[in-house]
């Protein structure tokens, strides 16, 4: 196919506009560099009334919000989910991986949970504690200044707790707990489980004059039209466009990084999805932020004489050490919460309280920890509401089923009487969990796709087992009943399939040794001095926290490094 060349040369080409790419775009363009942002999805602005789903009612959808075209329901703000039209991936037999992709300006940050946790000092050096995995080449102190700046720039609520491995930051005050969260607090305290206000990047208080303050609709997963929650679209890319230093290419799917005969990057080529044609643009520096697995795919597909294995892959480690957070969940029925008085308890779009990891692994049969997220049911009904309307009758010796006004009464009686508990834990990265190019399958543009191979080990399974033991204890101490049976060993203790927690990281891991890692501590490829990766690919280990605050702090740090190197004309 003929490639259409653009003669303009950018200082930096940023591939992908999610958490990592948006951050880099802001910092690099603020520094006066000329940037191209190449994004596979369409333009998206949370405040665009034609795209907005915030504050819509379920009846405004003819399917009442059910998940036919969007996996997490009609109102969820993601274009693309486990499946993307015409862009398959494959999975090796007897292993599993589920890959969530969101193709739009801002990527997954338009609908993410806004849980914004710093990694702690231990998380960067966990091998020192248990001998497993690898240490990061950087420490908490290297990244702390960037977490601090991020807190102030974006805004995150939380409280100072002085817990060693849960570092405090520059917090906005959190919202008061909801009623069911008071039950959780009670149960957690009785169980000896730490419980503190959650830490979410939602503005409970104004941080500047361009973003609004949260008006408590509880719908951050629909993206906030007042820009009161963090999305890379509303907080980074859209404001950066106004500065005049950024050219945005949407619906533009990057295929490979182009290199010269010395193996240095000269730019990227991409498919314009509107006309199916291939284009190329030039840049002095290429920053990949297409998400951990997509960036790995681009690098592996960028084969040349200088890089026969794929760009930056002399170590053969691109795609390896892929790991996702572990997950298990349980619903708890609280008899004290039946026949609730109704009132507006939407709150912010996420939990108001949570439990960070609270135990010492020396006394446990598995390494690393997990945190507990708290879900609710006193929410706006959507499709699926009221199937099994009165199954809790069984706890009171009453008949389950029936119809008529009695049924209607039962629906109201049990509305809001359950609490969801989700454990989210740290897995041990392994070389034999990976993604690679599947030579036999191509997407609709003819580009080879990824194949995954992923299995949990005993470490993760035991962690999931511990989660369920904890959930049952918590349920009991809340005065509730954990629903369903505890999953057995054969049921893998109910652990989520790899990928399902959507925290996939590690595909281009960072290290000082070029034989054992793909990028250096500034997220630059060991093999090429002008290609960087600023998504979660460089993560050496994915802590018992959610990844995004760390993706962004690292991306900021890398961006400053790029600015410095360009200034010194080192690249």
């Amino acid at each position, binding site marked *: 196919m003929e490639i259409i060349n653009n003669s303009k040369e950018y200082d930096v080409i940023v591939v992908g506009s999610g958490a990592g790419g948006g951050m880099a775009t802001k910092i690099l363009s603020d520094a006066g560099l000329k940037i191209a942002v190449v994004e596979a999805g369409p333009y998206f602005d949370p405040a*665009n*009334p*034609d*795209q907005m*789903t915030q504050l819509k009612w*379920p*009846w405004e959808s*003819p399917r*009442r919000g059910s998940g036919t*075209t969007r996996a997490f329901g009609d109102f969820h703000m993601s*274009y693309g989910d486990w499946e993307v039209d015409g862009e398959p991936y494959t999975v090796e037999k007897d292993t599993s991986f589920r890959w969530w992709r969101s193709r739009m300006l801002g990527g997954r940050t338009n609908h993410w949970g806004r849980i914004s946790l710093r990694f702690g000092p231990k998380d960067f050096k966990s091998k020192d504690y248990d001998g497993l995995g690898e240490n990061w080449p950087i420490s908490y102190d290297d990244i702390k200044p960037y977490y*601090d700046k991020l807190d102030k720039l974006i805004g995150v*609520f939380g409280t100072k707790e002085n817990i060693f491995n849960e570092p*405090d*930051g*520059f917090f*906005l*005050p*959190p*919202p*008061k*707990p*909801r*009623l069911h969260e*008071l039950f959780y*607090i*009670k149960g957690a305290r009785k169980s000896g489980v730490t419980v503190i*206000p959650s830490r979410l990047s939602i503005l*409970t*208080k*104004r941080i500047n004059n361009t973003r609004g*303050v949260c*008006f*408590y*609709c509880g719908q951050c997963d629909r993206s906030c*039209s*007042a820009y009161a929650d963090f999305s890379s679209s509303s907080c980074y890319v859209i404001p950066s466009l106004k500065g005049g230093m950024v050219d945005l290419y949407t619906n533009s799917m990057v295929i490979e990084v182009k290199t010269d005969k010395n193996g240095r990057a000269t730019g990227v080529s991409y498919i314009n999805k509107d006309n199916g044609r291939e284009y190329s643009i030039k840049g002095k520096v290429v920053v990949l932020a297409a998400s951990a697995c997509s960036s790995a795919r681009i690098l592996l597909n960028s084969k040349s004489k200088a890089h026969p294995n794929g760009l930056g892959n002399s170590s053969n480690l691109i795609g390896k050490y892929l790991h996702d957070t572990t997950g298990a969940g349980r619903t708890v029925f609280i008899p004290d919460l039946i026949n609730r*008085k*109704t*009132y*507006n*308890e*939407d709150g*912010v779009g996420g939990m108001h309280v949570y439990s960070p990891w609270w135990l010492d692994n020396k006394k446990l049969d598995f390494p690393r920890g997990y945190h507990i997220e708290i879900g609710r049911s006193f*929410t*706006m*009904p959507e*499709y699926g509401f*009221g199937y099994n*309307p009165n199954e809790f009758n069984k706890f009171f010796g009453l*008949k*389950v*089923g*029936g*119809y*008529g*006004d009695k*049924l209607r009464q039962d*629906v109201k009686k049990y*509305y809001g009487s359950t609490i969801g508990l989700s454990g989210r834990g740290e897995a041990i990265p392994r070389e034999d969990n990976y993604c690679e190019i599947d030579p036999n399958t191509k997407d609709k543009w003819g580009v080879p796709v990824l194949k995954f191979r992923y299995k949990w080990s005993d470490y993760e399974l035991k962690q999931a087992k511990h989660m369920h033991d904890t959930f049952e204890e918590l349920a009991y101490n809340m005065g509730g009943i954990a629903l369903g049976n505890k999953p057995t060993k054969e049921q893998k203790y109910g652990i989520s399939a790899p990928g399902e927690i959507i925290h996939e990281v590690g595909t281009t891991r960072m290290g000082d040794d070029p034989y054992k890692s793909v990028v250096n501590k500034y997220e630059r490829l060991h093999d090429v001095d002008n290609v960087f990766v600023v998504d979660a690919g460089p993560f050496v280990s994915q802590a018992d926290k959610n990844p995004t605050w760390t993706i962004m702090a690292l991306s900021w740090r890398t961006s400053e490094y790029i600015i410095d190197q360009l200034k010194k004309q080192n690249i």
Partner: protein
Amino acid sequence: MDRRESIKNILLGSIGSSVLLESCVSLDKEVLDKIWEYQYGRTPEEKERDEKFLNSKFFNENELKTIEKIANIILPPNEIGNINDAGVVEMFEFIAKDWSTPAHNNYGEKVLRRGVIVFDQLCTEKFGLKLLDCSESQIKLLFDEISYEDKSLKDQKESVKLFATFRGMVVTGYFTSEIGIKDLGYKGNTPNVWDGVPNDVLEQYKGIVSYDKEWIDKCIDQSKRGEIAEWDEEGNLLT
């Protein structure tokens, strides 16, 4: 302030969506009205899918009437409204098409239409009449038999499973409608300022759960939500 800002956004939303859809100028008024009803931030592909289904028929009149009658017995009308106000039958019609692919196991045909056929057959066996011609008390006699699972069976009878599905659809359809939400008492989906569980509710749970002062003192003082945040070097909030 924020409240006004967000309300402005909501208004903008309705103006934005009142722009006429080019692709449906050629459609008749009834379909047009339907499409106008559903403006909820669709992508062009999603819009096309909705329009296609809103502009085609799955159930015949008889089937629709049968579903309506069943739904009215599962959730009878009350002072707030009824199944028709809640658009439950329209939802059946739409989902039958939306889920009529092999990926959904031909739900429309195999479950929803099948349900109508099976309930009709049972009525004919029992009363010699189609469901639509049965009296409400006759239909209730049937429903009394099929609306509870038989715990001794591992696999429930088809009629019991189908009834459970219809009941689920009716309850979901009703409680996701404007009147259903009113009936339920859900009060949110509107700009507000959350300042904790209301006092009368806390009163109700006295002795079970309560706020502790230390926790509440760390929470947002809502009178200062509009003031721009500033911190000292230790991260203590100053404003």
